[in-house]
């Protein structure tokens, strides 16, 4: 079943088309990698699906709803969670508070100005924390976390809304080899247990071909090719944009 259907997506920045007519689908429970050289328009696509940017043209259907141009918070309530290319958390709060706030928002309990947050949603927050293997970091302030931990916390926050689609913008960027493995197996586990679909942007080809069921290649704002990892891996044009133009492959 198609969960997300993107058609004719376009976004201009000052006359230049960062995304110039992109179509793709993501099925329920599917794991799809979005790859392409820097500046191809991957993050811009995410921002339009996530509601951070308003598309200049095109439609985005998610689970029967047209979401193009809707507010980010409305899109999140429909069941799309996301992380950012530069890991973003609530820096002044503890790890646990980061999760509590996301859970409280999901349950629409943030308008409450009298209860103390100390005891709210603790069990669920600890449960999420356990899922990303950070139980021992609960009381740490997010600003003090190592980058790898930050990425995991971000993932846990995204999961708090019980999404059916996760958008992960370069989940392993800035991580060491072993940390990448840890994070990706975490994501694999989440996919299995929650049956959530994942669309992720990734530069590390080992990660892409090890975890994605399908790969979409974006180049200069357009879909160059999409298909099974093997097909994409052996495509001349893909080799060309990655090797020929000397773009960054693994950073």
């Amino acid at each position, binding site marked *: 079943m198609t969960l997300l259907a993107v058609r004719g997506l376009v976004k201009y920045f000052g006359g230049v088309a960062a995304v110039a007519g992109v179509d793709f689908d993501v099925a329920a429970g599917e794991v799809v990698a979005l790859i392409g050289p820097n500046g191809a328009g991957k993050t811009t696509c995410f921002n339009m699906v*996530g*509601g*951070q940017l308003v598309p200049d043209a095109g439609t985005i259907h998610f689970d029967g709803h047209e979401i193009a141009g809707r*507010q*980010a*918070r409305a899109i*999140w*309530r429909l069941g799309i969670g*996301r992380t*950012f290319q530069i890991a*973003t*958390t*609530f*820096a*002044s*709060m503890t790890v646990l*508070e980061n999760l*509590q*706030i*996301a859970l*409280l*928002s*999901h349950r629409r*309990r*943030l*308008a*409450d*100005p*009298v*209860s*103390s*947050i*100390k005891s*709210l949603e603790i069990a669920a927050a600890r449960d999420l924390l356990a899922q990303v293997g950070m139980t021992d970091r609960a009381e740490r*302030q997010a*600003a003090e976390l190592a980058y790898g931990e930050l990425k995991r916390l971000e993932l846990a*926050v*995204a999961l*708090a*809304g019980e999404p059916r689609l996760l958008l992960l913008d370069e989940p392993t960027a800035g991580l060491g080899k072993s940390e990448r493995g840890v994070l990706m197996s975490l994501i694999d586990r989440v996919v299995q247990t929650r049956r959530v679909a994942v669309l992720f942007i990734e530069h590390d080809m080992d990660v892409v071909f090890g975890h994605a069921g399908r790969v979409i290649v974006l180049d200069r704002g357009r879909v160059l090719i999409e298909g099974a990892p093997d097909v994409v891996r052996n495509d001349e044009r893909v080799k060309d944009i990655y090797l020929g133009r000397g773009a960054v492959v693994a950073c």
Partner: protein
Amino acid sequence: MGFYVVQFLTGLAGAASLFLVACGLSLVFGVTRVVNFAHGSFYMLGAFVAYSLTKWWGAGLGFWAALVASSVIVGALGAAIEVLLLRRLYRSPELYQLVATFGVLLVVQDAALALWGPDNLLGPRAPGLSGSVALFGQRVPQYDLFLIVLGPTVLLLLTLLLTRTRWGRLVRAATEDRDMAAALGVNQRHLFTGVFFLGSLLAALGGALQLPRAPATLFMDLNIIAEAFVVVVVGGMGSIFGAFLAAVLIAELHAFGILIFPQVTIVLVFVVMAVVLVVRPWGLLGRPEDARHRTPTEIATPLGVPRCLVVIGLIAVAAVLMAWPAMAGDYGLKLATEVLVFALFAASLNFILGVGGMISFGHAAYLGLGAYGAALLVSRLGWPMEAGLVVAPLAAGFGALLFGWFCVRLSGVYLAMLSLAFAQIAWSVAFQWYDVTGGDNGIQGVWPSAWATSPLVYYYLALAVVAAALFGLHRVASSPFGYALRAARDSSLLSEAIGIDVKQVRWFGFALAGAAAGMAGGLYAFLKGNVSPTVMAIPVSIDGLVMVLLGGVQTVVGPLLGAATLVGLKTEIASATNVWRGVLGALIIGLALLFPRGIVGHLGRWHRGGRP
């Protein structure tokens, strides 16, 4: 018909100075990212220095020479201040920069008072242009025509400077992307100092040009800075042409508003500003902030003071407050009550600042709305004090809902400027709506109910109300709503991405803080027995910020300590010297330089072994 044309020309002439000041402010901000409060001081000094030079050189060609000389002198002064002070603050949070430049403003005010005295200075007629020209059967001063030509000429010259010269291109590069300019190897120090020189020069020229039209006064600095903020917010930060357009717009509103009903101009300015900000939050010709370059709000890390220490501190403070009456006479009690009132005011400001991350530079508006709300009810309608104290937070809360709706659409220094502009509007209404507010004289006879007239009882009443309000604010800050506010402060991007309506949360937070400040205002009215417009003047807003800074953002005891320190200091300084403003200004500057995190914040850092 002719009459309206002439009125239009008068407006255009008025726009010239405003444009000069606003575009200087905008230029300086574009490059240094500092909103310079002292910019208004340069405007004032420009007029004062030109006045003295004209006296000295004689009114003939002396005036024109004085115009130029005064601009250059004040420009050099601006450059000196950049080198000595601001350069050290470029990496500090916006709040500290704003407050430090306000310190400069205070020092300049007292220096000007000492040098030129308190009287208004009547400038000379402009030599050669003192006559008038007949237009459509009306008489238009020649000097106005000169100003009308001057505005666009300066605009043209600046545009040429910025587009055709190497220096100008560097300025634009630095305005658009500081990091890139640094990477290009631009000598930032010289560039910054140069821009400061130019900006201050423009402000001074603006001030000096006003001399033939209006007397130079010691209030010029604050009046013009509030107007310049409006112009810059409406025109769009960083856009020189936008500043010109907005200056013309505002000046025309004044020129024509006066025809209908003098008081209506303030409302007109408010309406225009509101409309522009709703349609184009980044101003008429400004560009929307590029989300990728937005600097996250400074994260103030909560204090690592252990709980037991906090509890001991609170008990100690409570003990002092309870025992105070035994130690103090009536005067001491009144002083202590004032400290309590300002502690609540500072705490409410601390709430939007620390928890909400919104820099309000016009928080006194809500103190004032509360005070006026209570005073009007009691003195005009004859209601008792108790009703006044209930109405105070409501009145201020509604005011904050109205102004806040616009403020929360902006962030950082834009929000600071807008909040200040709103406060100035509230002040003007109180000042000018004579029939209702009593104008400058204010409202007298705002006394407490019979049972609370003794200073002792009123002290305990204030203590109870303030304690309850502080507890309430603290409670909200640790509630889900308070955390939503914190979330919006830490990252509005992520907040929206997890379903938080950032604007709405900020709006309610703003209103709540306004209501709390209004509560303080109500208490203040009955403490003093009268209310006057000064309660919501800019200096009071700044006092609140200084208290918060003294106490450290994000601490509970902080506002109380800050209020006690500032009220105490002011009383001490004011009784010892009549240049208390200058001393206070110097103190503020020193404070911002030495403790960029507030005093209590620094204690917290030492406690944690120097970790940031």
